[in-house]
């Protein structure tokens, strides 16, 4: 792959990454949200691979493959199984409705670009121009955690958040050391497993997975 082509691939992947994040806020069907997460994971893997091609780091290909398997395959698969077990496919009444959510998402993307300007201007690598995309995904993920009720939406929000963090790490510093990446991925896997168990338990206890039913957490 030539330098110019890899930059174009990188830009395209970043665009898909951001769109998938915003799309996850737009769709109410949880299966569609999980599908968008898989797309975002795949885009992240492409970002890593394109960076590897651009900066001639062959080990980034291995990282890209690992990221792709985990974030586009394993984690969405686990979420799908949890979805099948819970039997609720719609985020019926979100705390913030879809239209407002999209407006907020637009504002958050603007904020991310405004804040990350000095970082984007750093003449480090091709990736640093696209850095605000990762930050935007972090903010959108956090917003999803706040604005959606179902436990599976929380899982999705958390995954958006973590995808964003990983994207920032890739774009700013061409990835963290392999050992750290493996550790983070392992943590992520555990978190999703725990949330999945939680979803199933909530379903059997309350008949719904609305997180606002958990109100005991105060002094």
């Amino acid at each position, binding site marked *: 792959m030539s330098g110019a082509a890899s930059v174009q691939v990188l830009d395209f992947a970043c665009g898909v990454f951001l769109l998938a994040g915003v799309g996850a806020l737009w769709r109410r069907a949880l299966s569609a949200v999980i599908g968008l997460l898989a797309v975002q994971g795949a885009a992240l893997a492409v970002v890593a691979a394109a960076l590897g091609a651009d900066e001639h780091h062959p080990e980034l290909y291995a990282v890209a493959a690992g990221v792709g398997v985990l974030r586009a395959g394993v984690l969405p698969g686990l979420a799908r199984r949890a979805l099948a077990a819970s039997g609720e496919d719609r985020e019926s009444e979100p*705390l913030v409705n879809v239209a407002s959510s999209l407006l907020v998402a637009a504002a*958050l993307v603007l*904020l991310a670009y*405004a*804040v990350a*300007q*000095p970082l984007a201007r750093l003449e480090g690598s091709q990736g640093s121009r696209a850095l605000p995309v990762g930050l935007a995904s972090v*903010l959108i993920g*956090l*917003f999803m*955690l*706040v604005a959606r*009720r179902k436990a599976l939406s929380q899982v999705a929000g958390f995954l958006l958040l973590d995808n964003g963090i990983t994207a920032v790490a890739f774009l700013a510093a061409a990835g963290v050391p392999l050992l750290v990446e493996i550790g983070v991925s392992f943590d992520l896997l555990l978190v999703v497993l725990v949330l999945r168990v939680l979803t199933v338990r909530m379903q059997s206890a309350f008949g719904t997975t609305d*997180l*606002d039913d*958990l*109100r*005991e*957490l*105060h*002094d």
Partner: protein
Amino acid sequence: MNLIGAGLACSVGLTGAASAAGLALPRRSRATGVGVLTAALGAAGVVVGVAALSGRTFSACLPDVLPLAGVYLGVDALSGLFITVAGAVVLAVAVYGIGYHGHGHDPGRAASALFPLFALAMLLVPAAASVSTFLVCWELMAVTSLLLVLTEHRRREQVREAGLWYAVMTQLGFVLILFALVWLAAAAHGETFAAIRAAAGHLSPAVRGTVFVLALVGFGSKAGIVPLHAWLPRAHPEAPSPVSALMSAVMVNLGVYGLIRVGMGLLGGGPRWWWLLAMAAGAVSAVYGILQASVTSDLKRLLAYSTTENMGLIVLGVGAAGLFGSAGKPQLAGIALAAALLHVVTHSAFKALLFAGAGSVLRATGTRDLDALGGLRQAMPVTTAAFAVGALGAAALPGGAGFVSEWLLLQSLIHGLAVPGIVVSVVLPIAVAAVALSAGLAVATFVKALGTGFLARPRSDGAARAAESPATMLAAMLMLAGAATVLAVAPGLAGSWLARAVAGVTPVGPAVADAVRTKLTVLGSTMSPLVVVAGTVGVTVVLAGLLRLVVGVRRRAVPLWDCGAGPPSARMQYTATSFAEPLQRVFDDVLAPESDVDVTPVVESAYLVERVSYHRVVPDRIEHRLYAPVLIAVRWCGERARALANGSVHRYLGYAFSSLVILLVALAAVK
């Protein structure tokens, strides 16, 4: 590296060894190992301090010890004075600790290892020569002392409350000191003391004034100045006795050191209102502290309040020195500062001695309540004698250690009336009155402590079973008593050291030092405490001999007339409470004691009384008025804040999200 550097390095090494001994040695030999090594650490401190006092100086920069800032050390005569005092008290208290901890009061591994670290921190604070080094040493001292106060938290519930009070007060003080010094360093564009000293003259008066007030409040809280004294009567009684001795005799001094170092050394003196503020705080502390001490019946609490009194006198002296300096009277300033520094030294000697004595009593009887003591003179003769020497010093009577410095302070205040200005001519007589009143109340307080605590007959089983302390504790008390006696009868010996310490701080230099030395020597010769003591002792001995000659050697034993009310019992003697009752009556409006009489009638008839119970407490009024509203407000805010946490996960996530977004928006807007 000269003697001072070698001594400091040596003390750091000894601290490591002592802490390791505290952690590693088995219980049987732990107290001895830690005690011996800590005593050596104290001796190293004395060597460093004396070397600095005899004219050597030392400065060093260790860039690798603290990241970014580096460690700057600098020892001059003023530091030397405080290091000498700290080292000497550490030496004696470490020896005392061998007996105290070795026989029954084992503090455990952690406290044994922390004790030398606390001692080292107190040696290093005066040796720091940059803001960051000073703050690190100060915080090390605060944290180690807090952990040591909590040593016995498993045995008594009150220890935790005392620890909480101490932690809050000391950290608040630390924050203020941090603000003051960091602000000063930022304004002076340099954080070493030398850089600040060079730039301090060009700062704006507003910055200088604010820094001084912050430093006064911060260091005042460490020195136990009213109204920031609330931790002192709590933490000192609840700490193990060697720790209370170190805290009360050395740690509070460092508050004074900080005030002198920042106010006079770094800022180089200031306008009149600074020092009038310090004098007012000192005078109020002196009178209020000793007043509370005179009505309390807890021995260690009494000593803690007496510390507030003495620190008040010292701050009063420092304030007077600054006032005279700002009025262009360097000689008077030198005398007042010398008086304050001499009082630092003597107070450390007699207060360490008194706390050691109180620790012995506590160890032997299991109580600190003066009402339940008495009759210790026969069982504990050495402790009683040592406590008497300390009490004489604290009472500021001729022959006692505190007398010379208080006398010098009074003289400088009286001569200060020559300074023109209406404020001065109003303030100085009041200050003289405050010193005199506190001296008088101190006599009553320590007569009470010695008389009801040690003389007459025991008033409880614990006091009746008392036995003399182990030899190491007695040796330490005798060492401290010897130091107090030397300071009392021959204060002129310290003259040249004091002169050098004073000359290092006040900008005027050697001329004033000469004046101070002359003054101390003249004081030594004209009213020579040695002659006073020798005269008093001689006359007493001669009179006693004459009486025996006249009355005769033969003694006649006759039954005592008891008014027909049965033989006199220990319940009929003066207790601490009853001794203080007249004082409490006189100062009723100030102290506002709360008394409560409960009369329970017999069930059959309301006219027959079954039981009468009488309760009386003397609450700390300043604390009630000042702290209670703040605590209530904080508690109210805490209760209201519970509504913020209603249990909804989304709300908690929302807090995090909105704070992040607000932060980012602010960042984007500021840029």
